[in-house]
């Protein structure tokens, strides 16, 4: 049995990863899902409770349940009902593949949990190709018990990656604006949760209007807009310290902040005397430099993943459209040319697409286009859908949808959709929600 040790930091808690190889035979007919191939029949996968773990095995059931929910939410997998399982896989036991073929499982996940004396536990999992009767992946993780959800998401990402060839997106967080109250006096709070809705907490108390949060590349900080000082201003929130600070005392309104991919800068909009241009703030020196000029509205900037370019929206051409420029300013090129207005551009972490909000003919759309503006494709349309944010693998988008006001509606919820335009799902939040931002994979 070959072993490979990796240490992953999990919010400062060490996580030991061991690769388990049992039967390293070359795979013949690969068990694969091709993500870009239109409508896909979800792969039937069996995920029995992980064996062991003490306390009646609850943590083993919980791990299996969170992994199943993650994989099911992608629309690519169909976890089979545990009540149909024939084999009861005990710790250390291998699969009886016939039992799993009988219930039409194509993939099988077996796992176990061992508590250690120091209060930590070791979680092992193996992914099996049921018909080829081969192990496809196997890892062991050792960490504190409180981290069990992180382990489940990390395992789900491993399974997703092995089957689709793409990085997963389950070990991530969402920061968003939680909304309550009547529309004229809406109370808005900064809120954060795991991408599956667990571990939800509020970061601000609602006394000041807050909008449009974004994660830093390390996911340790959030930048957002707050009216706490009266004038709308950009703030930084340190998640571990639970503290916010203003980025500085700059005249005018600062808003629409986003981190650079290296985390050293925040690009934002600044309004002075009715004109809104794009500026970049160096976080170490706290010096602000101008990137665009002219009496237009330039806003919602977003860096390319290599940090070399910025896409933004501007009405410099007479209507709200998308433009790309060098991240030092200059080289401004318009990339949107369709009828209607384009806003909220966000560059995919893969670099291959830009997602945006489009308003045309009285409807709102979420769409994608290539960075040169070609290949525009609209994914969803509604009365009001806005503010796409990319999952870190660049294959799924989250956005918010708001209903018409006044008919007991006007409610605002988060949704995800994949790049094919399918698998639209509501994201569970305790109340109304808007302005979502997806973290990178946690480290």
């Amino acid at each position, binding site marked *: 049995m070959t072993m490979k040790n990796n240490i992953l930091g999990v919010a400062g808690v060490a996580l030991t990863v061991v690769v388990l190889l049992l039967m390293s035979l070359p795979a013949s007919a690969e068990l694969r899902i091709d993500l870009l191939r239109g409508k896909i029949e979800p792969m039937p996968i069996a995920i029995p409770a992980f064996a062991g773990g003490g306390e009646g095995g609850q943590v083993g059931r919980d791990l299996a349940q969170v992994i199943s929910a993650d994989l099911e939410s992608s629309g690519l997998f169909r976890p089979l009902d545990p009540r149909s399982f024939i084999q009861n896989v005990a710790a250390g036991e291998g699969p009886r593949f016939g039992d799993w073929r009988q219930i039409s499982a194509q993939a099988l996940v077996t796992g176990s949990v061992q508590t250690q004396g120091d209060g930590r536990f070791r979680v092992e999992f193996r992914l099996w190709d049921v018909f080829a009767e081969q192990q496809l992946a196997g890892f062991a993780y050792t960490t504190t018990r409180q981290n069990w959800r992180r382990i489940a998401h990390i395992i789900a990402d491993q399974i997703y990656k092995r089957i689709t060839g793409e990085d997963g997106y389950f070990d991530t967080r969402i920061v968003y604006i939680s909304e309550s*109250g*009547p*529309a*004229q*006096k*809406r*109370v*808005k709070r900064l809120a954060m949760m795991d991408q599956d809705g667990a571990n939800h907490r509020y970061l601000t108390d*609602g*006394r*000041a*209007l807050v*909008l*449009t949060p974004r994660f830093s590349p390390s996911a340790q900080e959030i930048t957002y*807009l707050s*009216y*706490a000082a*009266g*004038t*709308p201003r950009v703030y930084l929130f340190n998640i571990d310290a639970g503290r916010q600070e203003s980025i500085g005392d700059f005249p005018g*309104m600062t*808003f*629409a902040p986003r981190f650079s991919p290296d985390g050293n800068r925040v690009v934002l*909009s600044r*309004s002075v*005397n*009715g*004109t*809104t241009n794009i500026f970049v703030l160096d976080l170490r020196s706290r010096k602000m430099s101008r990137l665009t000029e002219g009496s237009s*509205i330039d*806003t*919602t900037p977003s860096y390319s993943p290599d940090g070399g370019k910025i896409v933004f*929206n501007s*009405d410099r051409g007479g209507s*709200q459209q998308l433009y790309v420029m060098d991240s030092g300013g200059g080289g401004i090129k318009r990339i949107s040319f369709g009828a209607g*207005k384009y*806003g*909220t551009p966000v560059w995919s972490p893969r670099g291959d697409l830009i997602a945006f*909000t489009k*308003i045309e003919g*009285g409807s709102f759309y979420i769409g994608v286009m290539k960075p040169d503006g070609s290949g525009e494709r609209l994914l969803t349309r509604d*009365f*009001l859908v*806005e*503010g796409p944010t990319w999952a870190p693998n660049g294959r799924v988008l989250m956005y918010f949808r*708001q209903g*018409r*006001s*006044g*008919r007991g509606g*006007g409610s605002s919820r988060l949704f995800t959709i994949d790049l094919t335009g399918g698998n639209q799902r509501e994201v569970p939040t305790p109340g109304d929600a808007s*302005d979502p931002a997806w973290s990178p994979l946690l480290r």
Partner: protein
Amino acid sequence: MLTRLIAVAGALLLLAACSSNPDPAGGPGGPLGPGGPGGPSGPRSGPGSQQDLASTAGDRVFFAYDRAEISPEAQQILRRQSEWLRRYPNVSVTIEGHCDERGTREYNLALGERRAQSVKNVLVALGIPAGRIQTISYGKERPEIPLSDNQSYAQNRRGVTTVN
């Protein structure tokens, strides 16, 4: 259908009220409540107050969709506001710029700021010192009328002069 008729009737009443005598019931600009400082902070009634401004001159002007230009009607209202401001030289104001919900969030913050600045520019051109006038944008965050129809949208696309 009935709800829609009531909504339209309500909006028409408000429009009628605004053109002659602004509705003081909710307070001009609406109480902003939780969600941030803002709204009139000076005396609520009496000479030099928000109510005085609203009933004498009109405390708000309206904008076309996606635009920040001052219409002839708005120009009249702002002329009266400038006269009122000359009568009370110790009063300073904040112009709030607002948008309807048919735009994206950050663009609307910028558009609201542009609208507030448009109003300020007119008042300054009419002789009010710029130092007496601040601006703030609320984008689409504070609709006057929380309904999704064109009459309500027209009321929400506004620049409101609030007494500090």
